[in-house]
């Protein structure tokens, strides 16, 4: 199975051969790997160098490599191909997502409203700070997904806006 991998901005192709060996960009890597914490932490030795790599978060994939944090991604060929296809934009439509988990304190608009760029749409309280979520452009409120008083997860869709002239 071949994976397209990105680590800290560098792109590599990793091929896991049937015999368990790894090839990186076509060359065999003499790596010796010990799993320390199941699915989370590995000790990797490459020619004497000792690296401890921990999966900090899965989505996005962040790794701690010898105490340094790096963003990474690994897609198998199929997933990589479909990801390339999906990157075509849907233009003019914005999903307003919660930038962090918290309590939706107030909703300042109703469906159908047309709001100016920078207008407050909602107020999200998280860890005792209030955060106003603003319209990214002059737009119409197509849909409100949640109402005031709701607890929301980080990344949840809160509203759908459509750019308006």
């Amino acid at each position, binding site marked *: 199975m071949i994976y397209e991998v990105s680590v800290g901005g560098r792109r590599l192709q990793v091929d*896991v051969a049937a015999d368990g060996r790894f090839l990186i960009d076509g060359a065999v890597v003499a790596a010796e790997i010990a799993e320390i914490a199941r699915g989370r932490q*590995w000790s990797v030795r490459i*020619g004497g160098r000792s690296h401890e*790599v921990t999966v*900090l*978060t899965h989505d996005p994939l962040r790794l701690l490599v*010898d105490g340094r944090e790096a963003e990474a991604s690994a897609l198998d060929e199929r997933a990589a191909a479909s990801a390339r296809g999906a990157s075509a934009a849907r233009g003019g439509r914005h999903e307003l997502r919660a930038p962090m988990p918290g309590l939706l304190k107030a909703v300042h608009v109703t469906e159908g409203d047309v709001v100016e760029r920078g207008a407050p749409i909602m107020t999200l309280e*998280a860890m005792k700070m209030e955060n106003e979520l603003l319209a990214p452009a002059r737009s119409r409120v197509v849909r409100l997904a949640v109402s005031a008083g709701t607890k929301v997860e980080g990344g949840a869709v809160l509203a759908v806006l459509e750019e308006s002239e």
Partner: protein
Amino acid sequence: MRVIRACHELGIRAVAVYSDVDRGALHVRLADEAYPIGPAAPRESYLAIGKLVEVARRARCDAVHPGYGFLSENADFADAVRGAGLVFVGPPGEVQRRLGDKTQARRLARDAGVPIADGTLAPLRDLAEARSESKRIGYPVMLKAAAGGGGKGMRAVASAAELDAAWRLSSGEAAGAFGSEALFVEKLIEHARHVEMQILADGSLGDAALRIARAAGYVSAGTVEFLVDERGGFSFLEVNTRLQVEHPVTELVTGLDLVALQLRIAAGEPLPFAQSDVRRRGAAIEMRVTAEDARRGFVPATGRIAVLREPAGPGVRVDSGLFDGLVVTSDYDPLLMKVIAHGVDRTEALARARRAVRETIVAGLPTSLAFHAHVLDEPDFVAGRYDTAYVAMHWPPRAPVELDDSQITAAALVAVLAARGRATRRLVASPDGAWSRAGREEALR
């Protein structure tokens, strides 16, 4: 935790309270007694003065220590505790009121001859007054909650255009956090350093701090905060009438146990030393590791601790409530763990801080650790050049973290292993038998 530890060292029985989400927290498990006080929402538990005093009475406590969050600077709480015939570990309610209202504290500092920034000496009546006062002082200004502290209800306002939104948000936050939406405004001092004097300090800033403490009739531990501008001039900022989050720095440098001293003062004992007996030894640096995603503007993060390694060894102190499997929610302050490094001088303290951060692992949710790692190696910080604009100037870093080829290779292999592991788990969970099998085989190849 910090207070329970001090109690146990002094042989004092420690009674804890907890909200529903904190049932399994370390402070509940390590206390001698623990009582539930309601649901996660602070207003119904950790901010419910009546419930807290009732628990203290029921558990036959002698004294109440407010910690350094929630009600630690609430004068009504101090009064309620005293009213129930218990000792409040901290300054009395009237002292807190005198210093807790930031505008009153500014007047007190001015009367004690300590410089303060230009601004209002009483809460603003309305937005109109805020507008006229800000214009008089000249932008940029700071809009602050009169009853506030800890950065809540506080906003820098660069121009008149921003004032409306800032007023709305700050007064809302102030009402929620402190029960009063009163705001005041003062001149923003750019490129200043924020200096906190734990009230135990010496030196010239220390004199000013002691003058304010004496003027206020201060008892117990507290902190006087100043801003020091680029030319070395300073102005009074505020007094925190509680133990400071950064108190371990003072403890490591002076060798004193501030919480134990608070408890002794509360028990009526005199301080066992005078100001002139306090000797400083070396330097200390505290890192506040928070559940905030440093790479996305420090937005609060939640998750379950999956791998945890706290640093240890020479010159490293950890104050933490973390454990493997702990679920970090968005209900409370994002502080996870304090890592404090101590050395014979700032150079050694920095080296130990770097080493400690390199050892630390908190997997399962985004944290501030990448920020600490970056700052400890950043030339300006290492050279001692930093002010209140430091973070905005130096974060996020311009270049991604430097990994060498060997580290990139190791990370790439783990990225693949992690992706395969996740794939297996997802497919096995699917109800379709055939897919499940195929997924497993593929992942095992």
